[in-house]
């Protein structure tokens, strides 16, 4: 599971470089997220622009990644395709994550 890590003024951006987070990719995704965020202290944004498909195992892996974030850090999502968004909303997990339509350019002062 390739995950590109970019530090931006808006936080750490983690871009998933795969088209699918499915049953086959779920464990590798969780492991990659743990490795990429373990020394994190602020906000991490998961950039899903490349992801065209997630199933319930992929959704579970994203929730697990949220739960395994170091204390005091946040995990937010950006750039969900309509298929990905549908899975989040069917499972009502769209209320659990802060979801950005686009990558936030800077950390908004009012958040």
């Amino acid at each position: 599971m390739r995950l590109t890590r970019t530090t931006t003024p808006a936080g750490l951006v983690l871009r998933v470089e795969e088209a699918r987070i499915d049953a086959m990719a779920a464990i590798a995704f969780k492991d990659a997220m743990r490795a990429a965020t373990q020394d994190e202290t602020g906000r991490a944004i998961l950039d899903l622009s490349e992801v065209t498909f997630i199933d319930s195992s992929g959704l579970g892996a994203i929730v697990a990644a949220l739960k395994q974030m170091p204390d005091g850090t946040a995990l937010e999502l950006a750039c969900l395709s309509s298929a990905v968004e549908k899975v989040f909303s069917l499972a009502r997990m769209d209320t659990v994550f802060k979801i950005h339509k686009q990558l936030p350019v800077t950390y908004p002062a009012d958040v």
Partner: protein
Amino acid sequence: MPFEVQCDATPAGIRRVLSSIRTQLSERTLGGAETITIAELVLAEILNNISEHAYSNTDCGTINVMADDLVWAWQFHVFDQGMAIPEAVQLPTEAATPEASRLPESGFGLIIINTLADNLEYKRSNGTNHLSFVITKVPAPTPH
């Protein structure tokens, strides 16, 4: 035109067969990208459940999928020779409101299946599980 495919009940086998089904559905459908997306998602959940639960005690199970092209919908039939679905398994109608302190990491599959598939039926005979359902065709947006 109907079609039929087979796969190993493993994550990689399922990924391959979903890709082949997507191709076959696209060739047979003008527009209808949304229908294909929904069909792929429901099939993914059903095939994953078979691989994880019905075949949980073996490394080598096989799944067969048949697709019938109705006018208004795709009708799918999924067959496997794994364990029966226990009667205790009930289709949840919708997801519970998540509580921050105990977020679930699983149990989303049946919700997805139940929300997106219609006419879901399950039968078992001679050691074969047979699940059938339809995915209503979403009309492609008309150009105007």
